[in-house]
């Protein structure tokens, strides 16, 4: 189903799009600032490449977005009025130009006043001086008024220092969002006194991944400094962060850690600023495709709150019973048991009914969800005999596949902490999964790698699929197989109007396939969500699975956007190409020509370089060439290296690059299926020979040549022969295919049965070490009987 309607268009200014010429799709790398306060208007800049005034912005930010004048190829400015009722969170942003859709960046909406860092703000007090001295630079930094969200960036070795004032006994929370909002920064935060004394430090905070939080009670009246930097002073790019500073209400974890989607759940919050465990009831709901929701502590008063994650599942869930007896802890008819190692050394045991021969996967989610528990899972039989155990397998959490042995009707599942710790925060989710043969698909667009400086795919989702009008793009689809090893055919629904798909077969046993997507020449320029399906399994019981974009960040606060395949139809390429043969064979040691013709548009007046990928390295060469300015065709001579006679079918992806209107253009050509084959084959007309000692017999062998190979082929024995046995060597001249070999069993031969290997070879030019090119031997079964009495 075509899902373009799922993209919420917030603003689209279409004034001068058609008059602009771009060399490629836009890429965006920085937002200044990276967020805004709800109910407020924020003007922010999008920096990147291949931008242009009038570029269309796609986002789901609830509010009104307007482009501001003065945009250019390097940056655009937008004014955003964030609706007061906007949920606090992170929202994806893309830009579209006629050349396509950009990558994604994340814009945060918060509920605190926003502050932007001002460089230089690197100096700490008393950094390089005597004890009494302090840095004048630090003392003059602007005073941060709490509460606030500070927008900063600390790429590389940068460190940002913020000054704030407080009174003795004030409880101040400083939380840095970085990984959770798509940044490459691994943040650390320090609290430093006015005299330069470090008072507290946080790096990785449990529950926040590699993000961090400091919760401090100020020791005296005065000024303090918060210092944010990458934990190893090697902040990635982008290295932005948002530091929330103030007196917040927050919890560190919940029990249970999650609930079934669409159900209400009783949840107890722990830790943080809560005076004690706080019980509340929540509705487990989130947008489609999201596996988590974000909750804030339901505390009274005007105090700002910090959200935390709560997992959503689709299966029924249980809560660990109070009873310590295993029989009282029956775990059945549900996929998830929510439990907790409440005290040090505790072991939670569950009786789990099974049937003999049943295969199950038992899996724990704990550390993955921010729990301090380093879980160990043990499966024992009814008599307490150990059957299986796992420590890791699901990250640090255990995962094991288990087949039920005979003679038992239940097992006992035991969960404990590897380090024998425990406490109210040591929660887990124990899952029992019936494994099934399955697969999943991930899309990695081909030929449109992120530009330098763009966020990595694992952080903010990959770039979109940009399909040129009248042209094509090649999407790379990766397969994650779960027991299913057969072929998968990729298709797009017929509703993807104007888009056609070719190829898309992922062979059995392989994990990558290519799908060629073409747009009609008159397809309207637009952005949409493309549905790509893969079908596997038997024809009678097909499995159809949708493809999603890869690179979901497990800690990101917004992940729904990567569950789709964003696509756009872009303007036509400056030239169109035709490849004479879409499927070719190339013989070992031979060449094969491939003709490419180009239909130049008005701007494609320069020479065109053609390159390829996908062919076996060092084995097949010659797949590059140049079409001169005055020419419209190119004949590539593909050459198979006789020293490396690999076999197989390879999808050759051809890409043309040229200068058009002063810009570098990259154009994808149709896929060419290249089959690398042997130049001849050998077949025995009889696979068996029954003879007696002292007899002779002719063996008929047929050599089948592939055009244009027509050289002499030698056929004869491979290796040594049994005593008394001989086989002639025959040369099959050009134009002939039949060889008659004489097999003689001498009087001194021993009666026996054996396989006689027969080899076909030819002298092949270009082989330096051994000119003899050999194909795999074939076997003749020979049975030698004793000489019969006269």
């Amino acid at each position, binding site marked *: 189903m075509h899902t373009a309607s799922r993209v919420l268009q917030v603003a689209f200014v279409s004034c001068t799009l058609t008059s602009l010429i771009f060399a490629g799709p836009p890429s965006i790398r920085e937002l200044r600032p990276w967020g805004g306060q709800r109910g407020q208007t924020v003007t922010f800049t999008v920096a990147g490449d291949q931008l242009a005034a009038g570029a269309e912005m796609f986002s789901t930010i609830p509010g009104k977005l307007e482009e501001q004048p003065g945009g250019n190829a390097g940056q655009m400015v937008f004014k955003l009025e964030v609706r007061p009722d906007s949920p606090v969170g992170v929202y994806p942003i893309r830009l579209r130009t006629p050349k396509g859709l950009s990558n994604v960046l994340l814009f945060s909406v918060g509920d605190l006043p926003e502050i932007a860092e001002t460089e230089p703000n690197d100096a700490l007090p008393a950094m390089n001086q005597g*004890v009494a001295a302090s840095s004048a630079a630090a003392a003059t930094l602007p005073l941060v008024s709490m509460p606030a969200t500070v927008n900063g960036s600390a790429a590389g070795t940068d460190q940002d220092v913020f000054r704030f004032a407080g009174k003795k006994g004030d409880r101040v929370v400083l939380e840095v969002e970085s990984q959770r909002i798509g940044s490459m920064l691994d943040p650390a935060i320090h609290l430093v006194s006015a005299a330069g004394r*470090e008072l507290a430090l946080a790096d990785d905070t449990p529950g926040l991944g590699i993000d961090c939080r400091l919760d401090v009670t100020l020791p005296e009246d005065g000024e303090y400094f918060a210092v944010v930097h990458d934990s190893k002073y090697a902040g990635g790019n982008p290295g932005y962060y948002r530091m929330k500073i103030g007196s917040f209400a927050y919890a560190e974890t919940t029990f249970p850690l999650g609930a079934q989607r669409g159900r209400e759940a009783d949840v107890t919050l722990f830790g943080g600023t809560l005076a004690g465990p706080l019980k509340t009831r929540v509705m487990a709901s989130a947008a489609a495709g999201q596996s988590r929701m974000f909750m804030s502590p339901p505390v009274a008063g005007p105090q700002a709150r910090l959200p935390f994650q709560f997992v959503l599942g689709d299966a029924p869930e249980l809560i660990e019973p109070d009873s310590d007896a295993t029989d009282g802890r029956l775990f059945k008819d549900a996929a998830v048991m929510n439990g907790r190692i409440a005290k040090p050394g505790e072991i939670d045991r569950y009786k789990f009914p099974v049937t003999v021969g049943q295969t199950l996967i038992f899996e724990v989610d704990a550390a993955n969800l921010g729990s301090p528990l380093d879980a160990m899972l043990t499966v024992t039989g009814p008599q307490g005999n150990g059957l299986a155990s796992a420590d890791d397998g699901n990250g640090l959490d255990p995962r094991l596949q288990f087949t039920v042995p005979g003679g038992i009707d239940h097992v006992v599942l035991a969960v404990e902490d590897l380090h024998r710790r425990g406490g109210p925060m040591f929660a887990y989710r124990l899952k029992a999964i019936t494994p099934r043969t399955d697969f999943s698909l991930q899309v990695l667009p081909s030929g449109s790698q992120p530009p330098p400086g763009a966020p990595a795919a694992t952080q903010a989702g990959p770039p979109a699929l940009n399909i040129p009008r009248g042209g094509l793009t090649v999407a790379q689809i990766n397969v994650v197989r779960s027991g299913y090893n057969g072929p998968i055919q990729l298709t797009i629904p017929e509703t993807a109007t104007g888009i056609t798909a070719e190829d898309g077969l992922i062979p059995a046993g392989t994990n990558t396939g290519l799908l060629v997507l073409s747009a009609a020449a008159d397809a309207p320029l637009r952005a949409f969500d493309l549905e790509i399906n893969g079908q596997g399994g038997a024809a009678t019981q097909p499995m159809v699975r949708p493809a999603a974009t890869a690179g979901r960040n497990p800690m990101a606060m917004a992940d729904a956007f990567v569950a789709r395949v964003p696509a756009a139809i872009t303007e036509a390429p400056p030239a169109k190409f035709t490849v004479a043969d879409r499927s070719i064979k190339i013989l070992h040691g031979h060449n094969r020509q491939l003709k490419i013709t180009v239909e130049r548009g008005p701007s494609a007046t320069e020479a065109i370089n053609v390159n390829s990928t996908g062919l076996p390295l060092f084995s097949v060469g010659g797949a590059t060439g140049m079409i001169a300015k005055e020419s419209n065709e190119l004949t590539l001579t593909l050459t198979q290296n006789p020293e490396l006679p690999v076999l197989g079918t390879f999808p050759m992806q051809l890409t043309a690059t040229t200068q058009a209107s002063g810009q570098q253009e990259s154009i994808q050509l149709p896929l060419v299926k290249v089959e690398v084959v042997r130049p001849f084959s050998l077949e025995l007309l009889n696979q068996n020979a029954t003879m007696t000692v002292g007899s002779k017999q002719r063996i008929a062998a047929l050599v089948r040549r592939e055009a244009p190979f027509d050289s002499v082929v030698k056929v004869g024995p491979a290796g040594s022969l049994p005593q008394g046995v001989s086989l002639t060597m025959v040369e099959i001249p050009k134009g002939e295919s039949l060889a008659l070999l004489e097999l003689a069993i001498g009087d001194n031969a021993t009666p026996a049965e054996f396989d006689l290997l027969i080899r076909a070879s030819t002298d092949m030019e270009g082989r330096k070490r051994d000119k003899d090119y050999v194909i795999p031997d074939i076997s003749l079964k020979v049975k030698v009987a004793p000489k019969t009495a006269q």
Partner: protein
Amino acid sequence: MLNMTWILGATIALAIGASAGSDEMQPISSPKIVSLSIQPNGLTLEHGSDLRRVIVLGVTEDGTTVDLTGTAKFTPDASGVMRVTADGLFEPAKEGLAKVTVEAGGQRAHLAVAVRGMHVPPVSFVRDVMPLMGRLGCNAGTCHGAQKGRNGFRLSLRGYDPAFDYEALVNDVGGRRFNRSAPDESLMLSKPAQGVPHEGGFVLDPASRAYATLQRWIAEGCQSDVETTPRPTRVEILPAAPELSMPGNAQSLVVVAHYPDGTTRDVTADANFSSTMTDVATVTPEGKVTASRRGESQIVVRYEGQFGVAGVTVMGDRTGFAWQDVAENSYIDALVYKKLKHLKIQPSELCDDAEFMRRVYLDLTGLPPAPESVRAFLADTTDSRAKRDRLVEQLLESQQFVDHWTNKWSDLLQCNKKYLGDKGVWAFRNWIRQSLASNKPYDQFARELLTSVGSTYDNPATSYQRVLRDPNTAAENVTQLFLGTRFQCNKCHDHPFERWTQNQYYQFGAFFAQVGIKNAPGPTRPDPIDGRPMGENQVVYERRDGGEVNHPKTNQPVTPVFPVSHSGKIAHEAVRRQAIADWITAPENPYFAKSLANRLWSYFLGKGIIDPVDDIRSSNPASNPELLDAMTADFIKSGFDMKHVMRTIAKSRTYQHSIKTNRWNEDDHDNFSHAAPRRLTAEQLMDAIHAATGTTPKFAGVPAGFRAAQLADTKIAAGEFFSLFGTPPRESPCECERKGEVSLGQTLNLINGPTIADSIIDPNGRIAQLMKSNPDDRRLVEEMYLAVLNRPPRDDELGKVVPQIAATADKTLAAQDLMWALINSPAFLFNR
């Protein structure tokens, strides 16, 4: 037969002290002997072949002693129980008690001797043969004790394994080393006696007692008593602390071995003697010590795996010495001065305030004081001791203190990017830093390092377990770091200079055999040791499936056993790492607190009371045991408060001695009578250069302004300067990794290198800033001295330098030249 109890009681009761009454003349030049001291003051001869000797000391009027053993006359009573041989050996004659009159130096004393029996026991392989082989050098590392033996004959190194040696002697080469019916034809005798060719030469005289003993052992059938005869538990040296007044004076030693059954044995003839300071005193193979020059040395005695040390003091000519009382700020000074007084060493004066300030800044914070701090301190008219104490407290609470000591502990804990990865090294450094900032008690600090579990990112104390890696490394690393002892040698054989055995090595490692380390999710990199994928983040845990250390000899699991027992509480016997942490950190542990007190002392005084500080052993005794014991007790009493130790040291007068010596302490290098110059460490030097020149450090990989001492690993800012000036690679806990020597390369770097040159001419540096205020020549010089040497210039310096500045047209250039000269002076490069 006499009642045995009575004999023992009588032995003690009849230990009669020296009595006056001799009218024997003394040489005029000899000091007057006022009494005799006989050591031991009573003898018990166990059997008919038990020969003993005694030491006769003459006590002079001023309390010093003189060895009179060689001239003493021994006269047994008429009981006929024992005889005295011509060479002074006490020889039993019949069972009973005897009284011996000792006359020497004009004095007379008496000695009780008991003979328990006259039976002659068979020659013991353990007590007789093994010591002989040790004495003859058969089992030395250069001979048959080498790892592969010599010429097909291998003994355990220095005889640490009697069972192995017995097997090697008796059963190797088909037992052909012995001819029991004709012992003299045995290879064991004929080879060392050169009856047949012996590569080791002639080492056994057929006329010697050793030859006779071996001959009798062979004749008695080469019996083994390895399983039944215990080895000695300790050796006693008499006199325990000989004092020799003048070079040339001599003192004989007697060595007595003590056995588990309470018996003793005179083993002087079979013991090995060596002197730690041969230029002070030499010792003969027979145990005679001779003074060479004034000073102190230790005579190390080795016998059958036991070590004893006798501290020898050669007083030398101290004519005219009269102790001048000096103030004592604490027990440290009292104990230091007690020894100095005894050695007739007068300590130096106090250093002045400026010297003290620079010294204590560098020692506590790694940085020199800023000029404004110097001015304020010198201008403060408060009592010097009070303001010094106040400064110590101020520095102890500074961030720079935390940075400096974080850097030191990062060395010892091997906070190393190679082992811990890019993020892990920062995480561990931050953990150390927070521990020091909170002044975490040392026992808790050690305990957390030794027992922690979890992720190296979430609980960075676990990084230490990543460094330890395996039980063997743990055995060596933990003992050296937390106990100040070295277990490396006893991995392959019993320790040659300490009582540690090979078994103890593996018994100690066994405490770490059940540590598991697994990769946490996330990036990996090749392990620097074995190349296997190693998680940047790892999780340390206690293995549920056990884990053991196998002894290399038996290939059998070794049970964890504490190297020595103490009365401290072991609360966690079940979990091995916790048990060893209990044992290590207990106040009763004889090494834990002592080694750190000693280590901290060395950081402030330049030398440990035991030195090297991480090589505590019997054969490396303390120069002032009383002081070290007192510091250890004080450290324990403070709750293992490291700052308390530093505070106590820094406030002591001993620490505040001037570097200037006097006539009486100029040759003292061991007793802390004056301050010793110490070259600044690489990090101190780098940071001091930036502080002096007023420039901002810029190291790759960290923000500008990060000081060298703040780096998690100096490899982060790889540079020639750090390696040239000896930053440690942090691949072992040895203090020796940090190089403190001075080299030509360092000098050339300082003179010509970019570090100093670029800092001096930095357009934002001190000189550039100073020149903006257009200072007069005198102020310019004063500012340079305050910035670089942390003191105002003296009048004579002003008198020389100001005219030079005045004569130079380009004041900036003149200031740069002056700063360059001052930075290259020892006053800057050394902590004095």
